């Protein structure tokens, strides 16, 4: 069996598949068109490189492909038959084994009532759908390696754990005997890139153990899984990033009036419009104006990587601890869409149903404690991001308008940033700009 991939047809990349001419089981001849691609210049057919039987489609209409992208697998006639490689089957891993999302991702997991569709073509159509659905952008280069941990020095149990957590073992170095990847390595590798193995304590003196029971009754309760995972990540950020927190406040009197209008309408439709949606949009506006805030240091720390996308993390308080799901492409979404997505995402976060893909790829994070209270705090930058916006509860305050004190709804903001990347003046300008947008949300549409 051979994989048929996009040949070198000239200078193009990421062009969409606009038509698929074959289905699994179809017999094709050499040069038969398999799929049609559309570049900005022309459409082109990808011909079959050989005669054979289509085994499995790896793309669906709308998928973006480049040279080398596998389109389908082909049983060439007379060739020895072997099981298809499973690269296509890599599903985005989920944190929760009983995650119904996994079922939702699976096209076949629909109710029985709408199920039986006679004939083989229905099955063939599903193959295409699944093949496409299973190539998520977020899965990235790891998918191939996840399929096969060949040569990786890890026991079967560790390999299974890595799969459950969606971790590519080929990119991890082991700390066990002879470089074996241990369960601890996998857990440590789940958060953040697999850089050098953690140096024990990095020279930081451990807090000495204490026997508290000497002083009174005590009880030991294990940390939740989320806490065990997020703890080391927070500690890593805190130790690596020279933090500065800059406070400011925005007058959101007008914004809040507008938000209430939208919210009243939204309630009827079953969702809520919160300040967070506006904070997301305003942050994107500020990130565009100050691209340094949408960058990361290279591992060598001699350059900045600027990101051309706007995925924002939103810290969510759950019964098991803090999680930070990522809202993708905030720049391309409106307040309504963001509000709906925030509702769904935070509900899923609280139910423990977020998958790894939901937690990766953020450029900037917002942590809002507005529902609880407070006047300011120091959020910890979620490295390798370079800044995080903390928000506490807005309050009515007397504001001098030049002639008199007027009651205005003021929102305190706490912007923590990585001082290696951002200096104080830039942070102050970022915060001022952000407040400006929030104070006059007409600027959002500019």
């Amino acid at each position, binding site marked *: 069996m051979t994989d048929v991939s996009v040949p070198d047809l000239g200078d193009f990349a990421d062009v969409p598949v606009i038509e698929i001419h074959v289905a699994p089981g179809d017999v094709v001849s050499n040069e038969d068109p398999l799929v049609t691609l559309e570049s900005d210049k022309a459409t082109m057919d990808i011909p079959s490189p050989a005669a054979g039987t289509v085994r499995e489609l790896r793309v669906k209409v709308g998928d973006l492909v480049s040279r080398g992208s596998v389109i389908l697998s082909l049983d060439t006639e007379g060739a020895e038959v072997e*099981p298809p490689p499973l690269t296509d089957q890599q599903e985005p891993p989920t944190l929760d084994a009983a995650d119904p999302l996994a079922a939702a991702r*699976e096209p076949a997991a629909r109710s029985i009532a709408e*199920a039986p*569709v006679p004939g083989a073509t229905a099955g063939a159509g599903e193959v295409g759908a699944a093949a496409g659905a299973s190539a998520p952008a977020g899965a990235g280069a790891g998918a191939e390696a996840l399929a096969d941990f060949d040569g990786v020095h890890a026991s079967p149990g560790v390999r299974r754990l890595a799969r459950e957590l969606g971790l590519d073992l080929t990119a991890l170095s082991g700390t066990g005997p002879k470089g074996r990847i241990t369960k601890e390595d996998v857990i440590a590798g789940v958060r953040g890139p697999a850089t050098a193995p953690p140096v024990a304590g990095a020279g930081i003196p451990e807090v000495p153990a204490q026997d508290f029971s000497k002083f009174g009754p005590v009880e030991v309760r294990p940390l939740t899984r989320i806490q065990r995972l997020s703890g080391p990540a927070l500690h890593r950020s805190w130790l690596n990033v020279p933090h500065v927190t800059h406070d400011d406040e925005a007058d959101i009197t007008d914004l809040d009036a507008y938000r209430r209008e939208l919210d009243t309408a939204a309630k009827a439709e079953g969702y809520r419009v919160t300040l967070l949606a506006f904070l997301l949009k305003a942050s994107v506006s500020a990130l565009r104006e100050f691209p340094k805030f949408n960058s990361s240091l290279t591992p060598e720390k001699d350059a900045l990587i600027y990101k051309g996308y706007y995925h924002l993390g939103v810290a969510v308080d759950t019964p098991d601890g803090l999680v930070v799901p990522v809202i993708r492409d905030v720049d391309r979404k409106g307040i309504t869409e963001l509000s709906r997505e925030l509702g769904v995402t935070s509900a899923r976060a609280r139910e423990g149903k977020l998958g790894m893909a939901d937690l990766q790829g953020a450029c900037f994070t917002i942590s809002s404690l507005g529902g609880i209270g407070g006047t300011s705090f120091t959020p910890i930058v979620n490295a390798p991001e370079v800044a995080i916006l903390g928000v506490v509860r807005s309050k009515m305050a007397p504001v001098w308008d030049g002639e008199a004190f007027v009651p205005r709804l003021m929102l305190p903001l706490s912007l923590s940033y990585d001082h290696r990347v951002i200096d104080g003046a830039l942070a102050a300008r970022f915060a001022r700009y952000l407040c400006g947008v929030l104070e006059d949300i007409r600027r959002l549409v500019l």
Partner: protein
Amino acid sequence: MENQTAEVLVLGAGPGGYTAAFRAADLGKKVVLVDREPALGGVCLNVGCIPSKALLHAARVIAETREMSENGVSFGPPEIDLGRLRAWKDGVVGRLTGGLATLARQRKVTTIRGYGRFTSPHELAVELAEGGAVSVVFEHAIIAAGSEAITLPFIPASDPRVIDSTGALEVEEVPSRLLVIGGGIIGLEMATVYHELGAQITVVELLDQLIPGADRDVVAPLAKRVARLYENVFLRTRVTGVEARPDGLAVSLDGAKAPATDTFDRILVAVGRRPNGSLIGAERAGVAVDPSGFIPVSKQMRTSVPHIFAIGDVVGQPMLAHKAMHEAKVAAEVIAGKNSFFDARAIPSVAYTDPEVAWAGVTENEAKAAGVAYGKGVFPWAASGRSLTLGRSEGMTKVLFDEASGRIIGCGITGPSAGDLIAEAVLAIEMGADAADIGLTIHPHPTLSETVAMAAEAFEGTITDLYLPRRPGTARSAT
């Protein structure tokens, strides 16, 4: 029986099928398990692994009592009551299949006895064994339809004197001369049984060694023993025709050392097994089946239709129950939303012959063919105290290591209990153990298990139970 709905339909109740059904049920799925046979357990439990092992145990007892008579303990020739032997074997099978039925009940797995064929991507029609038909509408399916013995077109299959492994396990009678066509695992196991029950055995194999999947040196002790005990072993020989005559089956042979014709009382055809992928209406479900009847799957056991999975013999070689059981768990877990993969690094194979032959991971043949830089440690059982006290000395343990990393990549073992011993090598391969790991692990003395450690020591150059002249420039250990 009424029509059924299932979250997970499992077609076939062999080791793969029942494992998949039970795992899926344990993960909270509503499971329907369909099999055409009255008893659960498939070929393995009913007409394969288990009954053959019962008969092989009987064969072993006969052989041991005979061998021991030379060492001062004589029992006299065995008196064989085939009826009671068969009843004992059937009792063992019944106990296991009955146990499966209980396990299915405890998990609330619905079992349907009948022949299932897909009618659409979400429906299976079952011709009930008791008559009538039901339909099972399913969300997910796991095809575990197994395989069946290959028949040879030029052999009169209707003649009761021509049997396959299933027929052989019935032990209706012990022929005076038995021809075994196929020198693989199944043929040689049955030859072992019938030889000890008193038949004269002739084995015909097309290729140039018995058990062609294993290394020649690993098979050699078995080949040597059967060459001595059996009437004939003809390698590179083809059976070209069989004529059923009243006085016997006249067989035409084509091979350098074989006579042109010979007559046998019975013929056992053991030339391999064919997957049942083409017998279940897979095309109506849209599931791709290759021309030989295998259903291609991904490492998550998914067929060309994403909600239909396939496991076991029907997805490819090796056709072994333990492979099927592991694939079964992967399929059930993926359906339940887990991100499981079948990524076993070694699947052991065992011939329960006398002596047993077992191997796992890369064979030396494969390593050479693939150009792998490997080293090996070999320990002959003639130097094993435990083997000698069993009255046997022909066994050997060979362990292959990757030259660069020193990690174990394969193992071949011949001798009594080789099938049990190979498990250590499989674990070592999965754990990425190297020769030192195995050699430094204290194995109990005296056991056959020591031979694995000693083979590792032989590779490392630390062995003291053998004297291996030091090869120049090959000192492997600083110790």
